[in-house]
C-alpha cells in the first residue's frame, strides 16, 4: 500500500464531506483547538484523533451503543499482548517490559477513527476518503493494513503457491462479512448471547477468549450434525478444528528482536525467519468453546532474547506459554491435501508437531502442544 502524501493525509474533500451528517458539525466540537486563521493558534490544544476509547471519546456523544464498550475491544486495549507478556515475564521485569511495549507494540492500538476515517497510524495514517466517515471499514486500507503479513496475504492468496481463501475467491467476501461490528466494538459481545452480562462481567484477554466469534458454524450450521452427508465431519466433530482439514500452508515466523536505533532514536524490529508451515498439534486452549483435541499451530516470532535490548532475561518465564500457538489461518479450501484420504493425516508424521520439529530451547514451552504419538494409519496400505 503506497503511503499518502503529507497533504493528502489531512485533506478534506469539501463537497463530499459537507454532504454528510458529520459535515454539519463544527470541527472544534470533536477536535478542540480554536477558530483562527493562524495555523499555530488554530492547532493549539487540538486533538488530532478524538476517537480514543474511554472518557473524552467524542464519537460516544452520538454513537453511545457502539462506543460505550470499545475499551473492552482487544483492538483498543491490546489485552492479548499483555496476557502473553505478563505470563512470560516475572513481575520484577514488568517496568522494562512496559517501556518496550510503549516503543514497539502500542502503535497497534486502534481508535474508532483508525477504522472509520483514516488508515491506521501503524501504516502512516491519513484520511481514506477526505474525512468522510465510512460506516464499513475498507478491507485493504483498514483491516489488512494491520493484519496483512499473515491474515491478509493468506486470505487474498498472496503467498506464492497457495490459493486465496475460498470465501474470497468464490464468494468475494470481505472481512466484515464474518467479523461483525458488534465483535469489533466489544470483544465480549458474543458472551451476552448466553450469559447475563449485567450480572457477570467478562473481559476477553485474547482473540481466542470466550465463544468463537465468528465461527464457521454460524453459516455452515449443518456440519457435523445429524444428516450431514460428509462422514468425516461426523467422525471428527469436536475432535478437530475446522482448519485442521480445510486450511493449507500458512506463514510462521521466528526470532523477532526489538531495539531503538542509536542513529535515529526510532524503535525498530528484526525478524530472523519467515516460512510456510502446516502443523497440527494438541489444542493449547481446549475448553467448552474450543473442545478440539487437535488444531493447527502457527509459530510466533517470540524468542528468549526478543527484548534483550531492554534488559537481561526479561522473559524469565519463557516456558509458561507455547511458541507454537493456536491458529486460524485465513486460507480455507474445500479440498486440501488433508481431505484427499484418511492416511493423508493418519500415520503421516510430516504434518504433526512432534518433538523433532521443535528447537531445543523451546522444547519445554511447547510440551502442551507437542503430539506424543501420531494417530495410527487406517486400514491396510
Amino acid at each position, binding site marked *: 500500500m503506497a503511503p499518502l502524501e503529507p497533504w493528502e493525509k489531512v485533506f478534506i474533500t469539501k463537497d463530499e464531506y459537507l454532504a454528510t451528517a458529520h459535515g*454539519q458539525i*463544527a470541527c472544534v*466540537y470533536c477536535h478542540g*483547538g480554536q477558530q483562527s*486563521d493562524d495555523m499555530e493558534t488554530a492547532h493549539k490544544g487540538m486533538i488530532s484523533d478524538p476517537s480514543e476509547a474511554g472518557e473524552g471519546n467524542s464519537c460516544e456523544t452520538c454513537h453511545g451503543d457502539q462506543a460505550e464498550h470499545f475499551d473492552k475491544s482487544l483492538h483498543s486495549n491490546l489485552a492479548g499482548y499483555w496476557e502473553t507478556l505478563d505470563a512470560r515475564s516475572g513481575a520484577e521485569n514488568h517496568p522494562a517490559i512496559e517501556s518496550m511495549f510503549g516503543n514497539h507494540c502500542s502503535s497497534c492500538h486502534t481508535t474508532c477513527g483508525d477504522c472509520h476515517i483514516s488508515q491506521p497510524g501503524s501504516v502512516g495514517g491519513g484520511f481514506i476518503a477526505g474525512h468522510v466517515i465510512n460506516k464499513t471499514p475498507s478491507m485493504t486500507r483498514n483491516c489488512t493494513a494491520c493484519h496483512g503479513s499473515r491474515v491478509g496475504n493468506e486470505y487474498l492468496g498472496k503467498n506464492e503457491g497457495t490459493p486465496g481463501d475460498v470465501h474470497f475467491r468464490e464468494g468475494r467476501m470481505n472481512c466484515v462479512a464474518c467479523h461483525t461490528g458488534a465483535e469489533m466494538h466489544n470483544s465480549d459481545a458474543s458472551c451476552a448471547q448466553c450469559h447475563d452480562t449485567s450480572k457477570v462481567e467478562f473481559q476477553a484477554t485474547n482473540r481466542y477468549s470466550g465463544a468463537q466469534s465468528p465461527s464457521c458454524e454460524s453459516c455452515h450450521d449443518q456440519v457435523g450434525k445429524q444428516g450431514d452427508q460428509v462422514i468425516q465431519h461426523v467422525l471428527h466433530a469436536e475432535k478437530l478444528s475446522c482448519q485442521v482439514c480445510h486450511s493449507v500452508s500458512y506463514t510462521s515466523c521466528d526470532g523477532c528482536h526489538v531495539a531503538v536505533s542509536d542513529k*535515529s532514536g526510532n*524503535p*525498530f524490529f528484526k525478524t530472523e525467519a519467515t516460512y510456510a508451515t502446516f502443523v497440527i498439534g494438541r489444542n493449547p486452549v481446549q475448553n467448552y468453546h474450543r473442545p478440539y483435541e487437535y488444531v493447527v499451530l502457527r509459530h510466533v516470532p517470540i524468542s528468549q532474547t526478543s527484548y534483550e535490548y531492554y534488559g537481561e532475561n526479561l522473559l524469565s518465564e519463557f516456558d509458561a506459554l507455547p511458541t507454537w500457538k493456536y491458529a486460524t489461518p485465513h486460507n480455507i479450501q474445500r479440498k486440501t491435501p488433508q481431505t484427499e484420504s484418511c492416511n493423508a493425516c493418519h500415520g503421516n508424521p510430516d504434518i504433526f508437531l512432534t518433538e523433532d520439529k521443535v528447537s531445543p530451547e523451546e522444547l519445554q514451552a511447547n510440551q502442551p502442544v507437542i503430539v506424543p504419538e501420531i494417530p495410527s494409519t487406517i486400514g491396510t496400505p
Partner: protein
Amino acid sequence: MRHRLIVMAALTSLFLFGCQAAETAEPRVENSPTAEAVVVSEAAPAATLPPANDYCLECHTDQEKLTSLATKEEDAHSSESEGVG
C-alpha cells in the same frame, strides 16, 4: 349447532380485535420519524454547528495551501525494521 355458533362468534371477535390491533400499531410507526427528529434537533445545540467562516475547513480543503504547509512526518516505526512484522 349452538357449539358451532359459539366458535364462530369467538373467531369473529378474534378477527376484529386482530384488525383493531393492527390499526393501532400503524400510527405508532408513522409517528416515529417525528419523534426522532425532535431528539436529533435537541441533541444538536448551536455550539456543534460550523461557523459561517470556518477556518479549519478553509485550510483543510485547500490542496495548494496544504501542499505548501504539510511536512513529511518521519516514519518512526519501520524505517530500520527488517523482516515481516
